[in-house]
């Protein structure tokens, strides 16, 4: 019972006056839900690594095509089908310009190095690959933006207004979703010319459905939340409720879903390229490069390899980043 602490003296027992306000004090800096999510995201190693890789790919997509001064359509059949060769890395078998034990550069009398090799037209694959990455990213961006807008508006209207509007919109959505993807693509393929617009339309025809569903769900969930009701009782109109309350609170879900629709769009573009609906020559996208290279898979695997690696990296990184964002925004993990 006796206290052995020696530094406890008589005056330690003096009463301290804790002001009421004192006990309300919050220490630490103010963090918004965004910052909070950001912090959690930053500590997620996988997600951060993914983001860095994506950033690097984007950077290369911008500067890569200017490295050697080639155009995407710089043909020269005298240097066709060269394997990759990087001067400083010739000790690595993958970059020594040999194929099946033969120095192709010597055989064709080529002195310049092509880091990713060349294709059958003698076009520099480094340039084409990064240019293709550019196009793929742009396609993904366009498709995703459009997808986000259609999906968000459709789902938002359906969920927020509810009632008859919701019923009708949901029935339409159900019917659209009832038609398989492939059927949409086929119909498009029959009546449209390949190219950027077709790709975008093809992606749009189907991909916004999930966004619409998610946004609708969010709206249904949020519009009966007490903070929305509170705003209502304060006399807020639809506009204020939508823009101040509903959208800021569903934007996390929208971002997460976008993270997943980017790789979907990239992958889909590759699939479209494969069935001949992709980008047109001499333009290249990652999908069309893989598709071109695929013909050569057994003979010149490097022609598929690099676009393949980049597309896979993009898909993987976007997916992991999406997962990371989901965790970062997960209300259950918040304390």
């Amino acid at each position: 019972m006796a206290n052995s602490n020696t530094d406890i003296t008589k005056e330690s027992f003096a009463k301290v006056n804790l002001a009421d306000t004192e006990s309300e004090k919050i220490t630490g800096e103010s963090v918004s839900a965004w910052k909070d999510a950001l912090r959690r995201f930053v500590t997620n190693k996988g997600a951060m690594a993914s983001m860095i890789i994506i950033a690097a790919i984007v950077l290369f997509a911008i500067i890569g095509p200017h490295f050697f001064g080639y155009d995407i359509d710089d043909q020269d059949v005298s240097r066709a089908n060269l394997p990759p060769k990087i001067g400083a890395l010739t000790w690595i078998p993958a970059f020594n310009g040999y194929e099946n034990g033969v120095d192709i550069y010597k055989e064709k009398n080529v002195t310049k190095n092509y880091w990713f090799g060349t294709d059958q037209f003698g076009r520099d694959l480094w340039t084409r690959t990064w240019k293709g990455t550019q196009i793929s990213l742009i396609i993904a961006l366009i498709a995703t933006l459009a997808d986000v807008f259609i999906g968000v508006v459709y789902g938002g209207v359906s969920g927020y207004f509810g009632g008859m509007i919701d019923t009708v919109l949901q029935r339409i959505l159900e019917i659209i979703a009832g038609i398989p993807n492939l059927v949409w693509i086929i119909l498009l393929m029959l009546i449209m010319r390949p190219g950027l617009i077709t790709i975008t339309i093809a992606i749009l025809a189907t991909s916004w459905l999930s966004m619409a569903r998610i946004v609708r769900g969010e709206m249904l969930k949020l519009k009966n939340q007490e903070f929305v009701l509170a705003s209502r009782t304060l006399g807020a109109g639809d506009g204020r409720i939508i823009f101040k309350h509903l959208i800021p609170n569903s934007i996390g879900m929208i971002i997460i879903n976008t993270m997943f629709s980017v790789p979907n769009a990239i992958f889909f573009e590759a699939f479209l390229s494969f069935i001949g609906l992709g980008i047109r020559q001499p333009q290249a996208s990652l999908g069309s490069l893989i598709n071109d290279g695929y013909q050569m898979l057994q003979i010149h695997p490097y022609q598929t390899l690099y676009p393949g690696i980049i597309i896979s990296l993009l898909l993987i990184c976007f997916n992991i980043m999406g997962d990371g964002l989901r965790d970062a925004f997960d209300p259950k993990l918040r304390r």
Partner: protein
Amino acid sequence: MDHLLEIKDLNVVFHIFGADVQAVRGINLQLDKGETLAIVGESGSGKSVTSKSIMGLIPNPPGEIATGEILFEGNDLVQYTQKQMQKIRGKDISMIFQDPMTALNPTMKIGKQIMEGLIKHQGLSKHDARERAVELLQLVGIPNPEKRVDEYPHQFSGGMRQRVVIAIALACNPKILIADEPTTALDVTIQAQILDLMRDLQEKTGTAIILITHDLGVVANLAKRVAVMYGGKIVETGTLDEIFYNPKHPYTWGLLSSMPKLHAKTDKLLAIPGTPPDLSHPPKGCPFAARCPYAMKVCIDHMPEYTELSKTQKAACWLLDERAPKVVPPSTIGVGGEA
């Protein structure tokens, strides 16, 4: 003295994002045969973590029992392997959870959920287990048990589900039943049914109960002994009457006086200002110091030791030190004793 259950200096830590939450900080508890011990306290004070520690159900990661012993009939459960724990759980010690709506597997028939433990621990055949399940449902007052064993949880109301959860917990006649807020999710009229049921069952089976709640009414109704937790620590323990009529810790005072009295007129409730401490950065001294109207310098820097007030009551508060000034507890707690 040999206790049925004895917790010694238990420390539980959760390693979560950017911090270590010290959910339980060195608690000591005893439980005897047939006794009902209530643990009351602020939300987040570590009540559930304590009970989960006893069951060996602290999720790992992120949780971990840092130090301490949990002696059940003399054996330290902390050292038990999962396999050994599985033999104890549901058989010797079982548990009821707060929310009956989510505590049952939605896709498994009620009967089967009750039978599982019976088959595992008592080696009953399917047929016998089923009969026993029907008996148990009858025991907890579910009409038509023969029919209802084959129904799914969603076909039951909240009160009935909680009865089922109790039936599951009691299936193997456990020596200890831990009830973690067993009635919080229920309406008062249903709560009364459940409390009645628990008391009856305890009389019949002699099971020791650890009752976790923050409803002092429920405590007064059911418990024999009370432990008051705050900030991961037990700040005061004693018999039911000692805690209600002769509390010594300012937090206990605050708790009691912030409750309105149904049968007496109170003009103004005595509120405890402020908010509980953040357990990821627990205060050096008494956890309650920041909100304590009697706080002294010493409280802020030094954790008080327990003062034995009677054979059964002890509290951890510097006010009980002989050097401390004498304070009168608030009159609102009714039966006032002097500190």
